């Protein structure tokens, strides 16, 4: 009985917390269903009519239907995910399991590369990529991911690999496995939660990243969701808030679904696959 009560209390607390946390999100959804010019004149969450006009307007408000920007973002995200999974896991294996000359120094350099604010890097980097004639393609955004420049994920995977029992790969080594096989057959399957985390984060961060996409994608044909969303906003004239919120909701959906699916893989770690 007390156990049941405790469970109910726990659920009540969690639901309350979730509601507070979700208030802004709910407000956005409600606002997207209001006539545009009422959004700031009526606070609160109460809707007196359901308007889907904002969705229709927002979808066609820019140079191309909004689906075009969703598709661009999807392509970009997919390429970035593959890049990060492959390159970061390889680098992480080296840092976590191999002994090599200058390891500590290289590791420090790797962490150092994420300590500089992007704003001073972007101009030299733009010049570099424009010399390569990569402006207005996805290449400046994708190629670096295949080259393990996201030190965040390298470090993340290093920490996960170091948490795996060494006996597993040592046993494999005694059996005559090389590093390539240990990496692919033993380490990778065991670090599924870390890989899932990488997928989720790469998805979300690329989906939301504004600065790089704004600078490198110049032709509206190439615009992605965050760049397109900002095209609704102008501080000096009236902004189509209704359309902006509607399209924000639309662009939030894929991310939310990605998370819903991805988080299942967070649960399937060693606890279910490796624990005998």
């Amino acid at each position, binding site marked *: 009985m007390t156990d049941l009560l405790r469970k109910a209390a726990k659920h009540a607390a969690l639901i309350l917390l979730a509601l507070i946390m979700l208030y802004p999100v709910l407000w956005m959804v409600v606002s997207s269903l209001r006539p545009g*010019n009422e*959004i*700031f*004149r009526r606070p609160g969450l109460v809707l007196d009519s359901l308007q889907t006009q904002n969705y229709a307007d927002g979808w066609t*408000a*820019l*140079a191309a239907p909004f689906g075009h920007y969703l598709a661009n973002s999807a392509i970009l995200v997919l390429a970035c995910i593959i890049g990060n999974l492959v390159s970061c896991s390889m680098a992480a294996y080296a840092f976590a399991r191999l002994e090599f000359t200058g390891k500590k120094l290289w590791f420090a350099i790797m962490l150092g590369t994420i300590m500089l604010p992007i704003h001073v890097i*972007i*101009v*030299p980097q*733009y*010049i*570099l990529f*424009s*010399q390569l004639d990569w*402006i207005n393609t996805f290449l400046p955004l994708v190629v670096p991911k295949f080259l393990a420049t996201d030190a965040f994920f390298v470090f993340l995977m290093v920490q996960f690999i170091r948490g795996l029992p060494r006996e597993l790969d040592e046993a494999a080594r005694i059996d005559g496995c090389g590093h390539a096989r240990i990496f692919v057959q033993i380490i990778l399957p065991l670090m599924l939660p870390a890989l899932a985390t990488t997928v989720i984060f790469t998805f979300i961060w690329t989906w939301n990243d*504004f*600065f790089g996409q*704004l*600078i490198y994608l*110049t*032709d*509206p044909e190439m615009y992605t969701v965050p*760049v397109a969303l*900002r*095209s*609704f*906003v*102008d*501080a*000096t*004239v*009236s*902004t*189509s*808030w209704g*359309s902006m919120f509607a399209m924000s909701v639309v662009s939030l959906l894929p991310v939310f679904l990605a998370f819903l699916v991805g988080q299942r893989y967070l649960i399937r770690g060693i606890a279910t696959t490796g624990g005998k």
Partner: protein
Amino acid sequence: MRRIALAVVAALTLSACGGGGGGGAGQELSKDPVTLRFTWWGADERHKRTQQVIDAFQKKHPTITVKGEFKDWNGYWESLATTVAANDAPDVIQMDELYLSSYAERGALLDLGTATQHLKTADFDRTALDTGVVKGKQYALPVGLATYAIVANTDLLDQLKIKLPDDGTWSWDDFKRVGDEVSKAGGGKITGVQSFGFDAGSLNVWARQHGASVFDDAGKVAVPEDVLAGYWTYLRDLAQAGTAPAASVTIERAGGALDQSGTATNASALGTWWNTQLPSLATASGQKLKLLRLPGESQASSPAAYFKPSMYWSISSRSEHPAEAALFVDFLANSQEAGDIMLTDRGVPANPTVRAAITPKLGENDKAAAEYLDTVKVGTAPRVTPNGASSIEAIIKRHTEEVLFDRQTPQQAAKSFITELQAEIDGA
């Protein structure tokens, strides 16, 4: 690693020096197909209309392709600075008064005086053209004009049974008095005045009414300390007397988008705006709004109001197709076709011929904005914001906040403002 770094720095140096590859703007148009890049900031409505203008131009000139690149305001300046640094700037650039000198004086823009073969400016008034002159050269062509004004919510005033004084003769004291009446009648929810003090327009007007100007012709800060102190004293009084909302509310509204302002949400009866913002405000508010002349004008020795270009057209000095770019700007600025599509989206057209032609096609509030421009008495426009002072609005805003929150007295703010702004100009 060192070699790569040197290579990148060398590239920076080179790209900054590189000239245009396509010869001067005075030459004949190319017979081969040419692609121009054209960039602007704005919201979705402007993107749509501008694309229609581009389509119309391409129909007339089938060998020229124009690629539009639209951005939001903040992203626009990051992106423009980056592309200019990399010698990869778009050919036709929408420019703002705050940044004009910064780009022109550093050689990023084409002297449009060299492009007269393709770009005609005969329709424009000399005073309008002068707003695009930097160091004696026409670097930019004004697109639309705007003038500072008071926007009054007449529905709200009627509802509270408050009569407006004659805006031909009213003073800043009258303005405050009306505001007080509204605040008293409004019962807390509604305040009389939406405080200003966050833009260069209000400061220019204030300085000019006191016979001063923010900058002198040489581009030095010229506004006297006591005039500035008076400006902030007035703003502080508005807040303390309850004529304007409490400091935090004022700042919150000033920091938001136009739709979140007191005028747009019908929370303030009077506000300072550019006349061209009336239609957007009216749409957001849903009530009857009216443009009034600025207080204090009849007491000032000469009109403080002035025409401010809403934005400019300019051409990159490193454009490879300056002649075609000039032709396109000519189309944007002079053609009836473009005027009919854009209407007042970029302000009331600075070209009087286009303005006259589109006026009958405007809606009620657009028409009111255009008529206001024709009837208001203006003086000569202040000097273009000098190179280095592009952050003037941020500096004004910060000092207003300091005063409203009693962290600085108006006198201290005035002193600190002048020092800081002058240092920015000297540092550029």
